[in-house]
């Protein structure tokens, strides 16, 4: 391995670990290709100058994306479409707000989101085991009590506060949609977001009903 390649591989170690795991090899491969084309000292110097500039620009950017805790900064990245909510999700959140009100809560929880989804999108009933299973879920949620902290809800949905797990579920739903080529976040994506809040009652009830991510992702839209 040439000295330049060894130095570049050392630089790559500075990128965040998850990113490196995915892209270290192809980046090193690309740099090797560039090195082969740099057949004079002048070209080699130019390559190093541009590579260092590229490194200094992109390495901090990868950390910034990571710290935003979003889909690698997709939501904030210039030049990308924002993932819109489907009308079903908007209606579900409306119903979730109603659910929160009916339980005398001044916040929306993952359980409210789940009830909103099941109320709005009847196609999801089949996924959780039918009408009887939906009733069972509702009963268990009604009999459950918990204190939860609130967070502001995204302005593109509504202005009712959201607790931490529900906030995370909303974020994950938006990340789930583009991962599978969907142009908007649908109830299934929000259900996947809820399912990933493993400690919540909503996620436990879904798991108990036999819902898992694989099943959700392979279900018809």
């Amino acid at each position, binding site marked *: 391995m040439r000295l330049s390649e060894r130095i570049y591989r050392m630089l790559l170690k500075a990128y965040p670990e998850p990113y490196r795991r995915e892209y270290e090899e192809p980046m090193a*491969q690309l740099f090797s290709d560039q090195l082969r084309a740099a057949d004079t000292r002048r070209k080699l110097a130019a390559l190093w100058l541009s*590579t260092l500039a590229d*490194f200094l620009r992109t390495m901090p950017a990868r950390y910034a994306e990571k710290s935003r805790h979003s889909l690698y900064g997709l939501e904030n990245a210039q*030049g990308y479409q924002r993932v819109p909510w489907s009308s079903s999700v908007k209606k579900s959140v409306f119903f979730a707000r109603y659910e929160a009100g009916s339980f005398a809560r001044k916040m929306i929880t993952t359980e409210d989101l789940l009830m909103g989804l099941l109320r709005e999108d009847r196609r999801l009933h089949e996924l959780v085991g039918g009408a009887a299973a939906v009733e069972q879920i509702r009963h268990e949620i009604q009999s459950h009590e918990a204190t939860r902290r609130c967070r502001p809800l995204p302005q593109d949905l509504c202005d009712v506060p959201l607790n931490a797990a529900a906030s995370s579920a909303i974020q994950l739903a938006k990340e789930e949609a*583009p991962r599978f080529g969907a*142009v908007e976040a649908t109830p299934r994506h929000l259900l996947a977001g809820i399912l990933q809040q493993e400690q919540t009652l909503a996620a436990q009830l879904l798991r108990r009903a036999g819902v898992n991510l694989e099943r959700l992702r392979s279900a018809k839209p």
Partner: protein
Amino acid sequence: MEPLTPAVFHILLSIVDGEKHGYAIMQEVEERTGGALVMGPGTLYGTLKRLLEAGLVEESGERPDPALDDQRRRYYRVTRQGRRAAIHEAERLEALVRAARAKSLLRHPQRA
């Protein structure tokens, strides 16, 4: 739809006619822009990663003959959604050029 960044549009344009690996994309962009846009590994793969996450690009499962190519290379192709985004951006740029021509900023193309 928001305008695409130059790096995103150039990458989509490079793979719109067939899958390519990172180095081939980089070379095509450099050639097309006359060296004005040179994407280093960090920029190229950072952009590809976001395009993958946005569903505009997908990694090709097929690998060329190992005797002909390095197996470490990854090949990328545009998705239907990515093609739509590229068409939308090309139309946006075309409209801009038309506006520039209307203001006599550019000459009308010579007819053959």
